[in-house]
């Protein structure tokens, strides 16, 4: 046995311990990251799952022409502004005739959501022959009722509902007239102050348009800038300075980008506040450093021999870049895009400055309509007093994360296809 072998044998146990330790660190690190993810997810899902269903109460309502105050069922205007709440109140009073006095009546009326009236309106619009008839319907309950119905028996003590209200609900529950149904409005409506009516569709579309603008601008610009700086720009003190500056941009607090957007895009170019285009541009500025930095790292990692090979064949610099460097660097560039876009998707602070922290009910139809975005919606809901918003907030977070995962899946799939070792 040679001297080396002896020496190696001696040191081997120690080196293997180091190896195992190292690998264990790796597993531990991944485990830690994934554990954090799982914790976050369980926390969110635990809080948010209940928001996907909401409480309905079965009632018999009568479309009474007098109460509704409609003289002509074909008149849109009259149908729109008729007193549907009155119809519901009648139904409630009939159901619980014991309620007397203003206070008790108020309590009674507040069992049903203000949104229920709009349902009646839609029914009547669809079928004017309902006028004067009585039908049995599932009516959307108020959010407090919803919280009460969903909470466990001993938590019900903490409820905001009055004793009267509790007894009414319990009597309805005993008759099987209270039911949890799929929360459709969550996925079809814009924001609302009534938790049972609030939806995230407005924010989802807003986020979609904003992210679209961000992606369309930031990825090509970021990659192009990285290519220019890495491949075409002369290498000197000035480009070093630019490199440092771009790295530095990444550390600029995001709200400052909002300030910049406010001053330049809204102030100078006169674009309106609160619109996805402006949000997208601001987030682009914020995301660019991330994409540029990771793209440059990826370009740097392409071995020079590949470039030489192509150049030796008479490929122009541009061809070398587009045919060889770019395909090899794309996975890294996509990584930059993935985390940059992820960050942009979850960002609120800069949007504060450009008016996207707003209450917007109407679902935006395009990138120039006022809109809000998912993280802002989350931020706003998280700050709302009503208890139902706690679950809604978590539900919105779940939607945002699904959005994120959907967005990433495509990029990750692309990246996976492009990756190779050489």
């Amino acid at each position, binding site marked *: 046995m040679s001297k080396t072998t002896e020496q*190696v044998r001696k040191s081997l146990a120690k080196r293997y311990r180091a190896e195992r330790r190292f690998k264990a660190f790796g*597993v531990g690190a991944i485990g830690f990251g994934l554990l954090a993810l799982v914790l976050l997810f369980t926390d969110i899902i635990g809080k948010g799952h209940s928001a996907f269903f909401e409480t309905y109460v079965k009632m018999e309502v009568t479309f009474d022409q007098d109460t509704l105050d409609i003289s002509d069922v074909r008149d849109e205007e009259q149908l729109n502004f008729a007193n549907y709440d009155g119809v519901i109140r009648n139904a409630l009073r009939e159901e619980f005739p014991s309620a007397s006095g203003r206070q008790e009546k108020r309590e009674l009326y507040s069992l049903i959501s203000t949104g229920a009236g709009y349902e009646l309106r839609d029914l009547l619009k669809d079928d004017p022959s309902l006028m004067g008839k009585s039908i049995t319907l599932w009516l959307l309950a108020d959010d407090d009722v919803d919280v009460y119905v969903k909470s466990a028996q001993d938590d019900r003590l903490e409820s905001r509902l009055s004793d009267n209200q509790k007894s009414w609900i319990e009597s309805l529950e005993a008759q099987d007239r209270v039911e949890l149904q799929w929360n459709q409005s969550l996925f079809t409506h814009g924001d609302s102050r009534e938790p049972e009516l609030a939806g995230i569709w407005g924010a989802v579309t807003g986020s979609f348009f904003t992210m679209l603008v961000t992606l369309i601008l930031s990825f090509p610009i970021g990659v192009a800038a990285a290519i220019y700086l890495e491949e075409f720009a002369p290498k000197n003190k000035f480009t070093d300075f630019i490199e*440092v500056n771009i*790295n*530095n941009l990444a*550390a600029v607090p995001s709200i400052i980008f909002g300030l910049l957007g406010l001053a330049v895009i809204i102030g100078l170019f006169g674009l309106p506040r609160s619109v996805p285009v402006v949000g997208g541009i601001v987030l682009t500025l914020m995301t660019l*450093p991330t994409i540029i930095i990771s793209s440059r790292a990826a370009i740097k990692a392409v071995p020079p021999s590949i470039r030489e090979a192509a150049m030796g064949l008479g490929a122009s610099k541009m061809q070398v870049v587009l045919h060889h460097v770019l395909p090899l660097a794309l996975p890294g560039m996509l990584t930059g895009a993935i985390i940059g876009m992820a960050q942009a998707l*979850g960002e609120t602070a800069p949007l504060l400055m450009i008016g996207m922290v707003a209450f917007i009910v109407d679902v935006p139809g395009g990138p120039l309509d006022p809109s809000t975005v998912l993280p802002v919606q989350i931020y706003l809901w998280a700050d709302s007093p009503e208890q139902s918003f706690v679950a809604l907030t978590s539900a919105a*977070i779940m939607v945002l994360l699904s959005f994120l995962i959907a967005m990433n899946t495509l990029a*990750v799939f692309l990246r996976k296809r492009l990756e190779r070792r050489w």
Partner: protein
Amino acid sequence: MQTGNLLLLLVVMIAGAYYMGHRRSFALARPLGGIRHLHSLPFYYAMRTAIWCAIPALVVLGVWLAFDDTLIRNMVMGSLPAASQPVDGSAANLMLNQISNVASGALSPASVSPEIAAAAEKLNSLRQLNTMAITVVVIVVAMLGTAWGWVKISPQMRARQQVEKVLQTLFMLSATIAILTTVGILMSVLFESIRFFGKVPATDFLFGLHWSPQTALRADQVASEGAFGAIPLFVGTLLISAIALLVAVPVGLMSAIYLAEYAPARVRAFAKPALEVLAGVPTVVYGFFAALTVAPVIRQIGESIGLDVASESALAAGLVMGVMIIPFVSSLADDVITAVPQALRDASLGLGATRSETIKKVIFPAALPGIMGGILLAASRAIGETMIVVMAAGLAANLTANPLDAVTTVTVQIVTLLTGDQEFDSAKTLAAFALGLMLFITTLLLNVIALHIVKKYREQYD
């Protein structure tokens, strides 16, 4: 035609121009004996034609759209009788909005004066005319551009150079955007900072040990002298970022190494994107998590060993922030580690190095620039984060290095100062800008140092 439709049409025309350029270059090449006798590939002739179609048309469209509104407005305003002319610019703006709203039906014509109603009709007709004109002009320009590009094609033309020049110019413009952003940011903080330093001596700001947010917000609120010592903020930033990086760098780096060097492909395919999700969780969520889940745990542990832990602590915020920035390190590092050529691994393994030795001594140094980039990004993100800090570490500017104390960061103060109840000119609002400037300069220095380190230790492979 609507601008959107016009753009769509333009795209079709560009595709057509490309096709025509392609056809023509082949047609020119045939008698010469194949495309090898052209100066450039047909692709470049085609691209050149497409560029000639696109750029003039887009420029015309852009310029037109930039000015047509003003023009139409002026014409509508001009049509109003002298008596109802608006007095100034903002009145004109309002009147126009009124006219437009009437024109679009949002306001009923009955609710406004007859002049306005007439103007609204004029506006509608002018708008129609405008859209027609723009459509015609843009299409004509695109066609002329295409024709010019097409006619000019010749076997000697240096089409590749021209197309590449255009591309390179685009690349350069892209890089310029990053530079302009820097300039813009400097501009947007510089002037206000100068005004701030007019009110508060720079030395107080730079070396002051006391940051008291209770200065006069309003003239009538509190009259005590404001304390604008930024040191506690910078120390707080350092503390929280350091904690975050202490979590993110080892975890991220080790994750990256494990994913790139040890993990089976399936694990990697799942774990890498899974970790990337961490970067996209909204910071509000992390904030709640830090404040309501992590902080109480830290507090309990602290109390069980007899430590006095503030309910808001740098530790909770830093830990959670660390989790958030893990993917910045892990994903970027994973990419560059994967890019290290196999030959280097072979060389090391062939000498009897263990995997970890290979990673530590060969792969890591070779991948250093990319890894450093990831770490810098992570650090930047940590410095720029606010929500988590506000929710879990509070807003109190304590000068402390104890991670169990409440601290605040520069960025948090910037955000609170900018979004809180503000007065236009108070030193307090301006302080946000001064803080921004200081932060900019500090991180700039850090980056210079980082660049230096990378240059020094970089090991260029191949």
